[in-house]
C-alpha cells in the first residue's frame, strides 16, 4: 500500500467554498490549545466573543465600527492582489489618510459641512494613494520589491504621525497627551442610535459596490485582471503594464487611505497615537480570505470585526494581550493555505505493488 499525491482533474466548487470556512474552524480549534496553554478554558472565550460582538445592539454597533476600516483597507489590498501586486502597507496608508483628513479638518478653515467632508475625503484619498504610489513608482520603474517597500513605509508613516501629534499638531489644551485638537462639528460624520457607529460604514459598502463595478464593468478593471493573470500576454496586447502597476498601487493605497478618513472623521474626531490598531495587517487576511470578490471583502471584514471586538473583551476579562488576535489570524492563513493544496491535489491510497 502506498500513499500518493495526485492532481484533481476538476476542483469541486463545493470544496472551494467550504475550504475557507473549514480553515477558520480548524484555526479556532488549534487556538483553543494556545488558550489552554496560557491558562484559559477555550470554550468560555469563544462564547464571550460571540456575546460581546453580536449579542447586543451595542456589541453589534461596535463590530460595525471595526468592520468599516477593514472593508476600506481590505478592498485596497484585494485590488492590488487582482494584479499579483502585494500591498502590505495598508497600515501606513491608513495613517497617511488620517493625517491628510486631519490637516484639512484643522487648518483649511472650510465652514460648509459637505465641502469640508468632501475635502477631507479627497485629502485622505490622495495622501494614502501617493504613499502607496511611491512603491508603485519604484516597482513600475525599477522592479523594486513592493512587499518590502510598502512594509517599511508603514513604520515611516506611523513615526511621521507620531512626530506631528507629539510636536507641531499637539493640542495645546490636551494636557500634553499625544493628540491633536478635537474637530469641529463641520468635520464629523453622522453617528447613529447613540452608539459609535457612523456613516463611514455606508460609505464603505458604497465603495465596495463601486469597486465591484469598476472591476467587472470597465476596461481598466478588465486590463487589471488580464495583467494579473498573464503579464506577458497583456504586454503583447499592447497594455501599458508599468502604468497599470503604478495606478493600481495608487488606487489601492487611496482606498486604504479612506479608512483613515473614516477613523478620524467618524470615530476619534482627532488624530491620535495608534489611530489604527493593525487594521492594515488584518486587511491582508481579509483580502486573501475573500479571494477575488468585493462582496467577499465585506463579509470577511465583518467576521474579522467580530473577532476584534471579541479580542478586546478577552483582554478585559482574561488579561489576554490584544496581539493574541494576530496569532489567531496567522493560524487561519496557515490552514487556508494548507486547504488550497487539497483543492488542487488529493491524497490517494494505492493497494498492492502497482506503480503509481
Amino acid at each position, binding site marked *: 500500500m502506498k500513499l500518493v499525491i495526485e*492532481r484533481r482533474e476538476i476542483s469541486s466548487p463545493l470544496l472551494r467554498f467550504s475550504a475557507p470556512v473549514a480553515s477558520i474552524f480548524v484555526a479556532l480549534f488549534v487556538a483553543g490549545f*494556545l488558550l489552554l*496553554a*496560557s491558562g484559559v478554558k477555550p470554550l468560555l472565550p469563544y462564547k464571550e466573543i460571540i456575546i460581546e460582538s453580536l449579542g447586543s445592539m451595542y456589541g453589534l454597533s461596535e463590530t460595525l465600527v471595526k468592520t468599516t476600516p477593514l472593508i476600506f483597507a481590505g478592498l485596497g489590498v484585494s485590488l492590488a492582489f487582482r494584479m499579483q501586486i*502585494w500591498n*502590505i502597507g495598508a497600515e501606513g496608508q491608513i495613517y497617511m489618510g488620517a493625517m491628510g483628513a486631519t490637516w484639512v479638518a484643522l487648518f483649511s478653515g472650510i465652514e460648509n459641512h459637505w465641502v469640508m467632508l468632501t475635502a477631507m475625503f479627497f485629502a485622505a484619498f490622495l495622501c494614502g494613494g501617493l504613499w502607496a504610489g511611491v512603491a508603485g513608482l*519604484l516597482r513600475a520603474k*525599477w*522592479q*523594486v*520589491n513592493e*512587499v*518590502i*517597500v510598502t*512594509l*517599511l*513605509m508603514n*513604520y*515611516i508613516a506611523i*513615526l*511621521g504621525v*507620531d*512626530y506631528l501629534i*507629539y*510636536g507641531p499638531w499637539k493640542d495645546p489644551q490636551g494636557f500634553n497627551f499625544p493628540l491633536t485638537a478635537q474637530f469641529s462639528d463641520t468635520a464629523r460624520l453622522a453617528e447613529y442610535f447613540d452608539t459609535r457607529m457612523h456613516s463611514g460604514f455606508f460609505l464603505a459598502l458604497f465603495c465596495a459596490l463601486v469597486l465591484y463595478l469598476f472591476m467587472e464593468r470597465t476596461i481598466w478593471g478588465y486590463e487589471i485582471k488580464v495583467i494579473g493573470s498573464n503579464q506577458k500576454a497583456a504586454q503583447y496586447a499592447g497594455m501599458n503594464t508599468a502604468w497599470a502597476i503604478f495606478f493600481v498601487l495608487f488606487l489601492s493605497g487611496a482606498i486604504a487611505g479612506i479608512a483613515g478618513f473614516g477613523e478620524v472623521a467618524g470615530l476619534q474626531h482627532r488624530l491620535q497615537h495608534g489611530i489604527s490598531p493593525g487594521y492594515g*495587517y488584518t486587511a*491582508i*487576511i481579509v483580502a*486573501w480570505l475573500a479571494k477575488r470578490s468585493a462582496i467577499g471583502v465585506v463579509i470577511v471584514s465583518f467576521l474579522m470585526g467580530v473577532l476584534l471586538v471579541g479580542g478586546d473583551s478577552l483582554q478585559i476579562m482574561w*488579561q*489576554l*494581550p*490584544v*496581539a*493574541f*488576535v*494576530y*496569532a*489567531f*489570524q*496567522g*493560524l487561519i*492563513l*496557515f490552514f487556508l*493555505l*494548507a486547504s*488550497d*493544496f487539497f483543492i488542487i491535489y488529493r491524497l490517494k491510497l494505492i493497494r498492492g505493488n502497482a506503480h503509481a
Partner: protein
Amino acid sequence: MLEILLDATVRAGTPILFATLGAIINERAGIINLGIEGLMLIGALAGFAGTSLSGSLLVGVLAAFGAAFLAGSIHALITVQLRGNQIVSGLALTMFGVGITALFGKGMVGLTIVGFKRVAIPGLSQLPIIGNAFFNQDLLIYFSFILVFLIWYFLYRTRWGLGLRSVGENPAAADTCGFSVSTYRFLAVTIGSGFVGIGGAYLSLASTPMWIENMTAGRGWIAVALVIFAGWSSPRAMLGAYLFGGITAMQLRFQAMGTTVSAHILQMLPYFFTLLVLVISTIRLKKGAGQQPEGLGLPYDREDRK
C-alpha cells in the same frame, strides 16, 4: 568617539546580521521567507525564557534556535510540501509570531537575567580603532563572524552547498541530478529560521537582557531588504547589517547628545535608509551585479517538469 560609534554599530548590527544570514539560506534554496520578523520575536522570547528558567545563556540560545526552527517548519511544510503561496505563508508566520509571543511572553515581562558579557580577545582587542569594536565583544558576536564564514564555505565549497544553490536556481535540473528538492528546501527553511531566531535572541540576551512585547520593531523586515542588498552572499550581508547598525548607532548618538531634531524623525532614519539601499541595490541587480536565485518564489512540482 569613532571607537564608541563603531562598537555601537557592531552591537546594533548583529541581530540583523543573524536574521539576514538566515533569510539568505532560505532564499538560496528558492523559498521567500517573510516570516523573519515573527521568527526573530519567537527567538527573542524563547531565548529569554530558556535563560531565565535554566540560568544558562547557552540553553537560551539553543532554545531560540529550536523554537524558530519549529516555527519555520510550519512555513516549510506549507511552501515546500503543500506548495502554498510563499508570500502569504511568510506574512502569516509573522502575524503568528507577533501574537504568540505576546501571549506567552506576558509572564516574562519585567523579569531580568544576566546577559552576555564582553570577552576580550587577547592581542586583537588592543588594535587601534577596530580592536574594541570587533574583538572586545560578547560570544554571540564572535559566533556571528564564524557563521558568516561557515555559510560562505558551505555554499561555495561543499557538495551540499552546491545542491542547495542548484535547488534554488533550477529545481527541475537539481531533481534530475538526484538532489532531493523537498529535503533541501525543507532543511534550508528550518535551519535558516533557526539562525533568524538567534538574531532575535541577541536582542533579549545581549542588547537589552529582558523581554519586551514586539521588541524587534521591524528589524526582521530590514533583514529581508538587506538580503537583496547582500546579493544573497554572506560576507556582503555583514557589510549591510553593519551599515544599518551604523545608522542606528548614529541616530541614538544624536538623541543622546540632545539635538533639537525630533526623536520620531531620527527613528525614521534606519527605515528610510533601508528603503534607499533597497532601491539602489535593485537597480544594481538589474545591471547584472549579484544574482537572484532563478527559482526564488516558485513552488516545485515534479509533474510540471518540461
